[in-house]
């Protein structure tokens, strides 16, 4: 079957099976920043923005996204560049497998929350697991990005 999605502001028509998840459809169509982590929506690695809100694409049927806006990190390259520089400044990137999805979620959080407290930041990002960094450097970088008004 064919599904119409708006991916990174481009109209796309994807061929898929009714049971396909968005994660697999996106990867098949070369949106390779979206990756598989846990299969059970616990790790956040497969996060995409669904009409601007972060959702796990491993459990979202592609057909359910018909007509909706899907954003991957490929669609927010300028903001990702900014976030990436703060990550570099703070030593927050290790294996990086979770970083595109974390960057997307941080980007969405900046739009959604005004002046969030440390606790609100942690709560917003709690679904983005990281096994490498111990989170501290990430949070330093994220706070600097949130304070960046450029």
């Amino acid at each position, binding site marked *: 079957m064919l599904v119409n999605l708006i991916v990174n502001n481009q109209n796309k028509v994807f061929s898929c099976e009714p049971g396909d998840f968005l994660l697999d459809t996106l990867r098949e169509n070369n949106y*390779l920043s979206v990756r598989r982590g846990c299969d059970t929506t616990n790790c956040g690695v497969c996060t995409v923005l669904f009409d601007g809100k972060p959702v796990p694409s491993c459990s979202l049927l592609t057909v359910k996204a018909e007509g909706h806006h899907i954003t991957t990190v490929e669609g927010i390259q300028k903001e990702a560049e900014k976030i990436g520089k703060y990550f570099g400044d703070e030593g927050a990137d290790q294996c990086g497998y979770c970083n595109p999805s974390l960057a997307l979620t941080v980007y969405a959080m900046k739009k959604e929350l005004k002046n969030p407290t440390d606790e609100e930041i942690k709560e917003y990002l709690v679904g983005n697991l990281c096994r490498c960094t111990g989170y501290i450097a990430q949070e330093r970088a994220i706070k600097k990005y949130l304070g960046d008004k450029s």
Partner: protein
Amino acid sequence: MKVVNNKAHSVDGLGILKGRAAYTDDLADKNSLIVKALRSPHAYARIKSIDDKLAKELPGVEMVLTYKDFPRIPFTRAGQGYPEPSPYDKFVLDEYVRYVGDEVVAVAAIDNETCEKALSLIKVEYEILEPVLDFENAVDNKIIIHPEPEIHDMFPIGFEPKRNIAASYKMHVGDVEKTISECDYVVNETFYTQAQAHVMMEPHTVNARMDYQERLVIYSATQTPFHMRRIISSALEIPITKIRFIKPRVGGGFGGKQAIHGEMLVAWVTWKTGKPAKMVFTRKEVFESSYSRHPMRMDVTLGADKSGKLKAIDFKCLSDTGAYGEHALTVFMVVGSKVLPLYNKVETVRFHGDIVYTNKTPAGAFRGYGAIQGNFALESAVDILCHKMGIDPIEFRQKNMMKENETSPIFAIMGEGTEGTAMDMETCKLEECVQRGMELIGWKDKYPRVESNNKIKSVGMAIAMQGSGIPYIDMGSATIKLNDQGFYNLLIGATDIGQGSDTILAQIAAEVLMTTIDKVIVYSSDTDLTPFDCGAYASSTTYVSGNAVFKAAMNMKNAIIKEAARVLETQEADVEFDGKILTSSNGKTVSLEDLSNQLFYSNEQKQLSVTSSYVGHKSPPPFMAGFVEIDIDKETGEVDIVDYVSVVDCGTTINPLLAEGQVNGAIVQGLGMAMFEDVKYSSNGKMISNSLINYKIPTRVDIKKLTTEFVDSYETSGPFGAKSVGEIGIDTPPAALANAVYNALGIRINALPITPEKILLSLKEKENK
């Protein structure tokens, strides 16, 4: 130093964050056959028959593989150097399955759905055997897990499969029983540590294709590409000349990707069909069918005299290697070799025990590699002894612990499956680490506890050491090429799995060549294109591979000076090089840019290229002191980690940001093991904790504050004074937490993880006494 010991951005962090294709599955051929395994539902069984007729007839199914399709060659998946200190006790597929999740049949099909459909059509008849699940009852059990006659060890490791013993070991210095009988104070305690899952974010992933030279090219998320090439070649009887292993970007390993997982099946499918193939483990497979940490029972006896001198350590250990013996002996030895030397002033010491088979998911390499288990036992026991003696545990450690320029006889006795290497501690800043840690945590104000209502604040600590590579065994090498316009390629076998080794090795090269990191283009871990490296394990990359890069860069510098001397018509000793300009004493100059352009295009053209190797002659340990501050709720038993202070002696930090990241990440992984991570099985051997729903790892909400500092330290045998930093951070959290819980409540938890349930039960027991 301009580049080293500076906070350089990682060379690949930005591109990866922006979503560039980088990881193994990003690079899979789009037409890859999907390879999946049918896995055993039984902890122990013999396959009586496999009916794969329907699966084979299903359109789109390319191959159905059973044990009958593979050469019967035993090997070890451990991913170690050769000969391995692990038993050759595994076949690609076997007539016996030895744990729930063991491979029974493999299917290659055109897509996921067809592959899964084919798996569901395969009928396997099992003779279900009674499993051995309790590792304390494995030795000389009537059930033998490995009865097959072909299996063997490569050199004596105490391998006795008929007794369910994968390996065994014993060592002693002096008569420990006699010393203990003469001690004024003796404690004798038993500790248990659980299996922990690695939970790297990228699952085990591999893909393969044939190239236009009819060679097998395998992309794999591995820590050991060169070992993989060797092991695949011998186990599948594919000529090694026909195999190329490429390690793309890896999404975390922690030891779990040192070993072979899907590589054998995918290599075989592509080799036999000529078609590209891939296998991506589901998270369930990562939990059930890869590896976890060796669970252990440790019986520790300590003896001290009235003056507070630790005189003897007697350490008996039983380790559970699960269904296969990967890393059985070596992890076991590290329990002793990277823990016991912390207390080097003892008169006698003994370390011994067995590593046993059980019908559970195999144990393998995991950051800490035995040291975290041994540290929990010894550093808990030391506090117990101190409380019995009424001595301050920090004063006791300051008196008895390893100090700079000292040594321990254990270094010479215990290596990695073999004898060790004697060495003095040229750098050991443990005293500074302990002192600074006390200040940072506020020990004097908080020890042992501060009570308020139902909350109790307390502190606890532990000291630790690790190693820096395996001396005389682990080799790293580096090739540096000079390009036109004066930039370099750095080709290294070293395996960046996310820890940042590409970055720090480029920093080392740039420092020697007096250039900037952007002029050093790094390419790593490709068995065709890069020189050999043992891989990312044993905390070896900074020290071993770093020394190789240092040597190569020095040789490149000399090669450049030699060419400049020719151009400037002078002697090499007469040429000064500042990284950009080469100057002779008579004032003639040539820029590196001009020189390199001439070398390519116009004047005695040649490619400047150097390759250097390094093998360690010692393994200088990094040291650290870990301090935890907790708030503990007496009503619920809940523990809140308020702060974790790490003060680390890893020599020079090549990149302080990445070094901090290594320590912080390891501390949090260690806290996970200390507090709640626990691989659990049902009574019939099925893993219960086989998803991230049932197996919790620390989230950012669990981690409030980490305080990490590095003390000044310079190890002259290391590159720019560096030792290792990858593993040391994981060792202290279990003991530091156990000690803090004791300091808060007067209860001692000797079995990890330290959960609220255990705390409450212990409190109840204490109240009932």
